């Protein structure tokens, strides 16, 4: 319908941001590349890949005349998919309306008739999982039940109940020994919840990596037992007509391979974002869909930002994409490679530090996509001498001092007059909040957001929470604490216990681990204290007593069944934290989700029975096993994504994984607040001696799957180093204006500093590559790897 130039012209006329800032040459090449051959876009952080992808979709529609319903654009998270779809729709409609006006004015009815057939909303966008669910549903033959997709919690519940407990695998020493071999970290599979989690992850890996279980089980008794668990789990899922996410994708692949997907058989274009975090199964789906439909393929990603290996992501697939694609589909599919390297996010000094960090390690360079380009700082204000602040470092002798000084710095910026850095030559940098700014403009990122250490000591996030709370500032860090350890959660679940089993008679006949038993006791104590405080709107004691006695005050008879979830929602009448607080919402959703997950696999469907003989107690026993124990032992995890957005007046604390795809004006990266000594238990997180659980598992299955060999190009320690480097590259590149690295003085001292990759230490044994200088020694001639201490 349009030529490239006509599209450019109308985009620049109709969309304000393109009037001033049109694409750079690389972006333009990526957008306007011909539909064939495939396009392989290697896009560093902040280089505008969402813009490029959205415009490429519009180019395929308005220039190449692809119909929107035949275009599939997929990405890694729901948020990223929503952002991509939003751009396509917003710009697409603006373009559509401008063209319509133009054609009407010019009287060009041919083009007008063509235009009005375009329905931008019909472009398929989503995560691969959401698209798979949609495609499977719409291609279902009559009479066939649509499978239901289960989340991680339901998968764990089914694994425990039907694949581990039924065959007493949890007491099998041979299995445990084998699992401990391939999971040497964090106590291996010794805890029941760990054993269940490891088996569930492994089951998913079997599908994702297409592991030949027959070959795998020939490795020994442990492998045989683990294979049997995988088979029992998948058999049970099939019989319940359920699919976990990996089986969902496998189902889609099977349907594509057997040509049972008429609704996508005519796909004209497939665009894949965040390809570096794809697993082997996903790669096969993309390849086979292209093979089936001959679709135009566009792949975008950055191997340096691949951080989801623990979910099966295989960065090696991305690094070797050009060869793998042409080997799979033929030489005519060899892609055109385009590099996006102009960074529009960060200041020059942040960009320079990121470049230095990702290129300083010679050994790592062989793991990257060949011939990668340096990022170039191209943001509007990137070189402004007033705002091009050096990368800052805050290191203290102990974590208490660090938390105190960091909270004071944040309060100075967001509640005070700002913070000034005095550097050499009487220069100063002033860091102040923007007009309308708030704590939500900053973020604290770390490897973990936990507020307690594994030995239950307060960590930096908790101290920060307490310091800021004293100034009336909240923290949004729902992942920071175990659900079971949160006081309000304890009160709520303690009240539940007091209602259902007031004297603990049923509980006393159940055999829990001592840790679970202690947690239940603690919850009851919290609840009793809370009842005694007679919280508003009063009447809690009476309510709980009536429940305990099954006495229906003013209501006649006690109902024969009562939903557990309704009791939970009623109890929050006395707990305003769950009614309005953002973290409270996240915790309440977790408890509700656990209840619903239990109802789909339990006998009584999370109903509390009354007047049904032995069933009454059995329904309560089920609540213990299916809801309360999974919360108590940590199986139930929070999902902070249910909050549409973090309120502006809260300081967000996130893991680096959570921050993927986000950007903040001020980013604080915790590179070592926990590290007082060069302790071997902490080395896996900062300077590993070997690989972690995931790397060892990858090696254990390497000979049983095609993709295994690709990973073996680097040994477990190298892969471990690579993954830490990528993680902190992602963390550092989130920042727009201010990047602050925080840790302990023991990490930056001149003599025997604690080795830390994030602070520039090299594989395999150093040396240190960062310089740390006092602010008054810093000048603009200092090299990129200089950190200004404050």
């Amino acid at each position, binding site marked *: 319908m349009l030529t490239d130039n006509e599209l450019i012209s109308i985009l620049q006329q109709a969309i304000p941001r393109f009037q001033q800032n049109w694409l750079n040459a690389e972006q333009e090449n990526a957008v306007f590349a011909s539909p064939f051959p495939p396009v392989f876009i290697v896009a560093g952080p902040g280089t505008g890949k969402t813009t490029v992808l959205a415009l490429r979709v519009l180019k395929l529609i308005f220039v190449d005349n692809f119909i929107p319903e035949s275009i599939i654009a997929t990405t890694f998270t729901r948020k990223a998919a929503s952002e991509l779809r939003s751009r396509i729709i917003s710009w697409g409609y603006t373009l559509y309306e401008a063209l319509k006006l133009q054609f009407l004015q010019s009287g060009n009815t041919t083009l007008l008739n063509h235009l009005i057939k375009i329905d931008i909303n019909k472009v398929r966008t989503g995560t691969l999982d959401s698209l798979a669910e949609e495609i499977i549903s719409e291609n279902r033959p009559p009479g066939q039940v649509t499978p239901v997709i289960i989340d991680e919690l339901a998968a764990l519940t089914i694994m425990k109940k039907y694949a581990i407990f039924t065959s007493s695998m949890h007491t099998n020493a041979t299995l445990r020994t084998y699992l401990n071999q391939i999971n040497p970290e964090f106590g291996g599979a010794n805890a029941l919840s760990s054993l269940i989690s490891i088996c569930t992850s492994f089951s998913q890996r079997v599908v994702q990596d297409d592991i030949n279980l027959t070959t795998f089980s020939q490795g020994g008794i442990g492998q045989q037992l683990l294979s049997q668990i995988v088979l029992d789990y998948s058999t049970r899922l099939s019989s319940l*007509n359920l699919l976990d996410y990996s089986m969902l994708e496998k189902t889609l692949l099977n349907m594509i391979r057997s040509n049972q997907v008429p609704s996508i058989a005519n796909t004209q274009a497939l665009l894949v974002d965040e390809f570096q975090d794809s697993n082997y199964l996903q790669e096969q789906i993309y390849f086979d869909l292209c093979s089936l439909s001959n679709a135009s393929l566009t792949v975008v990603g950055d191997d340096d930002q691949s951080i989801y290996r623990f979910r099966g992501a295989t960065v090696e697939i991305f690094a070797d994409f050009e060869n793998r694609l042409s080997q799979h589909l033929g030489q005519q599919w060899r892609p055109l490679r385009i590099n996006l390297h102009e960074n529009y996010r960060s200041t020059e000094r942040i960009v320079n530090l990121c470049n230095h960090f990702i290129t300083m390690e010679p050994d790592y360079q062989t793991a990257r996509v060949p011939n990668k380009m340096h990022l170039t700082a191209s943001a509007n204000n990137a070189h402004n001498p007033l705002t091009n602040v050096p990368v800052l470092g805050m290191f203290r002798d102990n974590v208490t001092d660090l938390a105190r000084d960091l909270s004071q710095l944040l309060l100075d910026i967001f509640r005070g007059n700002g913070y000034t850095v005095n550097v050499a030559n009487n220069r100063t940098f002033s860091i102040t909040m923007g007009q309308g700014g708030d704590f939500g403009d900053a973020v604290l990122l770390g490897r973990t957001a936990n507020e307690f250490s594994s030995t239950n000591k307060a960590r930096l996030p908790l101290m920060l929470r307490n310091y800021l709370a004293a100034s009336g500032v909240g923290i949004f860090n729902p992942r920071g604490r175990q659900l079971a350890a949160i006081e309000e959660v304890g009160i709520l679940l303690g009240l539940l216990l007091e209602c259902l089993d007031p004297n603990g008679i049923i509980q006393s006949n159940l055999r829990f681990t001592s840790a679970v038993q202690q947690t239940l006791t603690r919850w009851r104590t919290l609840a009793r204290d809370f009842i005694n405080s007679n919280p508003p709107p009063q009447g809690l004691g009476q309510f709980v007593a009536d429940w305990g006695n099954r006495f229906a005050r003013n209501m006649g008879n006690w109902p024969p069944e009562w939903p557990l979830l309704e009791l939970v929602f009623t109890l929050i009448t006395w707990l305003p934290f769950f009614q309005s607080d953002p973290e409270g919402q996240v915790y309440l959703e977790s408890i509700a989700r656990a209840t619903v997950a239990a109802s789909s696999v339990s006998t009584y469907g999370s109903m509390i029975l009354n007047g049904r003989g032995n069933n009454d107690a059995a329904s309560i026993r089920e609540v213990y096993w299916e809801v309360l124990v999974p919360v108590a032992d940590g199986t139930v995890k929070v999902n902070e994504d249910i909050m549409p957005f973090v309120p502006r007046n809260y300081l967000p604390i996130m893991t680096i994984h959570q921050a993927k795809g986000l950007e903040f004006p001020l980013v604080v990266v915790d590179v070592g607040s926990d590290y007082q000594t060069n302790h071997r238990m902490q080395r896996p997180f900062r300077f590993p001696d070997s690989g972690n659980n995931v790397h060892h598992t990858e090696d254990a299955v390497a000979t049983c799957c095609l993709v295994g060999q690709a990973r073996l190009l680097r040994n477990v320690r190298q892969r471990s180093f690579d993954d830490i480097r990528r993680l902190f590259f992602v963390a550092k590149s989130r920042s727009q204006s201010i990047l602050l690295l925080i840790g302990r003085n023991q990490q930056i001292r001149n003599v025997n500093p604690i080795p830390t990759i994030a602070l520039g230490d090299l594989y395999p044994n150093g040396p240190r590559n960062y310089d740390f200088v006092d602010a008054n020694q810093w000048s603009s001639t200092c090299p990129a790897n200089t950190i200004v201490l404050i």
Partner: protein
Amino acid sequence: MLEVRQLPFEVPKYSLIGDILSFQRCGLQYRYYSGSSLPPSRPVQLWTGEFTHGVMEEAFLVWNTIGPIFPWPCNITPWPTPNSVAPRIPNDIGVLGDIVEARLLAKGMRPRSSIARNMAYERISKAINLIAPILFPLITSTEERISGTRQMPNLTIPLGQRPRGDRYELTGVADVISSVSITANPTNFIVNMMLEEFPSLNGTFDVIVDYKAARRPPTVSIPGETPYWAYQEWQIQTYSWLRQQQHNSHPVKVGLIIYTNELSPSKDDLSELLSEIRQSRTDVSPIRGSSDYYELFRWAPGARMPIFSGDYLLRRAFRFIDVHQQNINHAVQMIDNVVAQIEGCAVQENCSGTILNQWPTNGGSSDCASCDFRRFCKSTSAPNAPG
């Protein structure tokens, strides 16, 4: 000076039923169920609604594929499910129900009780055997996903804040009848009813069909009652707008809502109907002097359930809506207003960091009765056990 972090740019997606109608029912309830993904503790209405839609869709697929003649048997799988069930034919409504029930169970949704389950089967059985023979031959597409995009309306939000997107996306799912099938079935009961109501219908057009697992709402709502009559009309008019956005679609001239509960009314339904007739708040009453009239007015709670004629049941079940541009424009304006309210509440919540005071609590009495959050919604009294 630091930049101010903006909300991620987003063209929010609103479903006509899941979002718009939910928010109209109650803002705060919508915030908890949809915003925070809290599942309802008694998804009774949700189960019934999804069961009805699901079985009707399955029935159409089977009818369209193998075309069994009506009536279809309904041998319900006993509850709890025994180890083996006697063989049934593929179009047995019990078999179709099993497929849908399995899907709902896996999502944690069960009927409230065996009585509620039996009632749902009774109603769907009537819907299939009374309605499907006259409706299915007219249907040209089922469960059609329709969507469109509109400009984001002006929001009332704090100074300095801006909406998260410049547009919003609206989605819905509907069955469609084309005028071609209407012309091809001149003796069809639905066609005759439609032409009776809209005698000047002509040309090429479509009819939007939607099922409601509910009774026909009163035409005039009283204080404390959610005005479903108007809301459902807006929904149909907006479906029509959405269809207008699709190329090759014919103009929608009529909407048809099918209230499946009317095919097998409960005692409560009858009491409400009597009251609405006395208050002149319903548009379909039995003709004075007809057998249906005496069946209804002689009935009293405790007496045997009346036996109505098929014609009367269908007239209660079918609601035809006149779709034309003026009505469509009004309806989408109303939907814009709802979206503006939702977006405004979301921004207010984002700025304040709290939920409770930012979302309206405007549920009707029947909505509040089954709401999980009624205990702390502007209520200061403590609940009695059992909840």
